[in-house]
């Protein structure tokens, strides 16, 4: 009896092979992360001498050294600097990009077509084409070495990618809802805030998460705008290990790397659905 049941369901060796292939690929891909975690717990002499991935004994002092901070700046300072910039960027992007997106998706105005085309074109614009004059502007305003150059542009919808993402989402919402709201006497502002915005939540969450992760990881902008060590973010603090050639601080350096990566890992674990689907929807719907 069992043998006939089995004959109906033969083992699909092709499928097994695909799974094995995927697992093998994952193992290779996750190796650098495992290496990072292992090295952050290794004593100094093991980092260079030992080829084992697993540490001989766990060197937790790497983490306490990392918690002391870098260049006399405490890690809490670095962490709150990073959080302030990322938080400001999230608020700015969600607010300004959703406002612009609503106009492009739903309202009529003169030059809408050309302006929309221009907005799309700025997605492809290399950052470096505007970098130097932006730096000069912020320099003239005396804002270099403050957080303004990192946060203010986000309040002006300069990240067109997110405007586009939200436009795509809003276009999928039924128009009837706003028409009903209009009949009930809602102006464009009320129908935006009370009808459209709540329905756009998935796109806004995607925008918020991506903004947080990209700002947290950003290196170049922070590198050119921030000089004072006590204004540094975690990313910039890690930079000071870039030129250091000595490997004596290897353990603490990778302990700090783990700490800097932790918020992204947590965001990823909590919001992976939004992240993966947000990325998929940005490319597929035309």
């Amino acid at each position: 009896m069992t043998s006939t049941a089995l004959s109906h369901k033969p083992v699909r060796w092709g499928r097994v092979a695909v799974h094995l292939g995927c697992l093998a690929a994952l193992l290779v891909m996750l190796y650098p992360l495992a290496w990072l975690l292992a090295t952050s717990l290794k004593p100094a002499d093991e980092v260079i001498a030992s080829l084992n991935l697993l540490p001989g004994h766990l060197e937790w002092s790497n983490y306490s050294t990392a918690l002391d901070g870098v260049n006399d700046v405490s890690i809490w300072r670095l962490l709150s600097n990073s959080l302030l910039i990322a938080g400001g960027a999230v608020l700015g992007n969600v607010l300004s990009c959703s406002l612009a997106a609503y106009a492009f998706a739903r309202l009529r105005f003169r030059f809408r077509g050309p302006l929309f085309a221009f907005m799309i074109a700025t997605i492809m614009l290399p950052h470096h084409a505007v970098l130097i004059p932006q730096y000069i502007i912020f320099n003239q305003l005396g804002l270099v070495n403050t957080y303004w150059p990192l946060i203010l542009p986000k309040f002006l919808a300069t990240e067109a990618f997110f405007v586009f993402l939200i436009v795509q989402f809003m276009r999928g919402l039924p128009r009837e809802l706003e028409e009903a709201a209009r009949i009930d006497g809602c102006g464009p502002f009320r129908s935006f805030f009370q009808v459209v915005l709540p329905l756009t939540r998935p796109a806004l969450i995607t925008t918020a998460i991506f903004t947080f992760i990209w700002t947290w990881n950003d290196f170049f902008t922070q590198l050119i705008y921030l000089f004072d060590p006590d204004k540094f973010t975690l990313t910039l603090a890690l930079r000071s290990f870039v030129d250091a050639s000595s490997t004596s601080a290897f353990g603490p350096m990778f302990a700090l790397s783990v700490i800097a990566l932790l918020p992204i890992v947590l965001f990823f674990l909590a919001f992976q659905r939004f992240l993966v689907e947000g990325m998929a929807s940005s490319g597929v719907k035309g």
Partner: protein
Amino acid sequence: MTTTAIPPEAKHAPATAPKRRPKREREGAAWVFLSPWVLGATVLTLLPMAVSLYLSFTDYDLFNPPQWVGLRNYTQMFTEDPRYWRSVLTTLTYVVIAVPLQLALALVVALALKGMKRGKGFYRSAFYAPSLLGASMSIALVWRAVFNDGGTVDNLLGTGGWVNKPGFSLLAVALLTVWQFGAPMVIFLAGLQQIPAELYEAAAVDGAGKWRQFLSVTVPMLSPVLFFNLVLQTIQAFQVFTPAFAVSGGKGGPADSTLVYTMYLYDRGFVASHMGYASAMAWVLLVVIGVVTAVLFRTSRSWVFYASEGDR
């Protein structure tokens, strides 16, 4: 109040004509919604583009007023600066290695996951994770250590550390980009799932094998997504910075082998304070990316197939 008022001209309009709010009021609202974007696009995009074009014809060190020098930055770049050409060649090499490898890997994994009943969600997320983590300085530092003399790759292949070898250092940087194939993979996967199953059934009825189905159904149906990934990843690859900075210890070495274009631009503008020269470099990058994108769009007419054209 004004919402219910009928505009004068509407009174004589046929009863079937839709009642519209006065146009100007809605247009005004649109500009309010748009105002942050308009301000940003003008002050932080258009104006800077014009200014950087102007600065590219000057000598400017940020402290003294810009000195007009005509085309000198450009002629110096093209004829007297071997490091400039070095950075161009490095970037092109990097783009040509990293982008095709990354897209090929993304497509292979997406195809493997496509028909999966179990574990698809898990794999999709797991393969996507490096795309988010890989842009960080943390991972760039790991990369440098793993590919360094005495690092894992050295122990495995006995190549003696790629980071210090001019022939290998750029490959290490490119592999960090390839490692982040998750974003294009997710987009490929979403595209694959939108291909109607009937097309495969029809092809199978016509006697097409798996390979034939791939060439005649999957490739043409996926070509818009492939094109999208190609354009996006190419544009991004031209602007690579952080991994090259970290792997080379911020110097672009060894022997300028990881001196990518943006790193040399950073070096000229923000380390050497030649803002005019860096602006000229930025404009050349803008033009090159524009030309490359235009060429990709132009060739796409012959290989990108839009099935849904017309019935949308």
